[in-house]
């Protein structure tokens, strides 16, 4: 493989992308702040069995917004997303099994 071939191969794997504007980042931060406000408000209201799934849902939305927008997973190479998701899924699976073994859910 010549130097030109390597250079072309490298160029083809690098995906050029537009970075979000500062205003977009500020909007995401505002959404995160509002969701946090809702989370705190929900913890003070008697919502019964709905509370925990609701809190976990809002947490998941915040988590996703941070990793996709602030950590640029939405715009970067797929391999970065795959590496992080692999660690995350492994962690969730391992510790769900561990907590089950300790009868945490009982």
């Amino acid at each position, binding site marked *: 493989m010549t130097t030109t071939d390597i250079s072309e191969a490298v160029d083809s794997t690098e995906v050029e992308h537009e970075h979000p504007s500062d205003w977009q980042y500020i909007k995401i931060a505002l959404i995160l702040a509002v969701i946090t406000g809702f989370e705190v408000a929900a913890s003070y209201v008697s919502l019964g069995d709905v509370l925990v799934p609701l809190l976990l849902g809002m947490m998941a939305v915040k988590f996703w917004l941070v990793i996709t927008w602030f950590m*640029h997973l939405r715009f970067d190479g797929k391999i970065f997303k795959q590496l992080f998701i692999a660690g995350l899924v*492994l962690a969730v699976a391992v510790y769900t099994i561990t*907590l089950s073994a300790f009868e945490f859910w009982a």
Partner: protein
Amino acid sequence: MATATAAPVAHETHEEHRTSTGMSNTKLAMWVFLGSECLLFGGLISSYLIYKTRGAGLLVPTDVFDIPFTSVSSFVLLMSSMTMVLALSALRRGDEALSRVWILTTAMLGGVFVGGQVYEFTTFLREGVGFTTNPASSAFFTLTGFHGVHVGLGIVMLMSAFVMSSKDKLHKEQSETLEIIGLYWHFVDVVWVVLFTVVYLVPA
């Protein structure tokens, strides 16, 4: 005169560095590291969930939580993530002075968060919840303490970037350095997103 012309050449040399995968090795390494950090924090969170009600007849952390105070701390850390991306965005545009302002703001917000955590720990100690009081408190202090140490390390990285930039060693061409510090900082933030809900808001 010679010094003035030497600096841009050094930047270009750094930018020219390419890898066989077409991706930055350091960025790849940071993502692998962050993936492994999920396992570390997963273990600590699981330990806390198992032990959080085991108070041995004494107060447990959930008895002395100050949710409004911790909510403000969470807001501060979330906003630090915003200032971090603004710092990177400014550097990518070549606006190094503005980037320095945002880097310093991020570090200061991180400092406020850590200060809040120290205050919280001190209050808990006064209330009678120490590290060795019971399994619940040990698990709580270990989990949140580890997170606090991560924030502290992030502040050290940010201050290093600030010093580099002040010494004219962090330019648009080296924006990846700041991006990698940013990845670490956002990860620390995202871990707190989970901790705030699971530890503080979900009822025992």
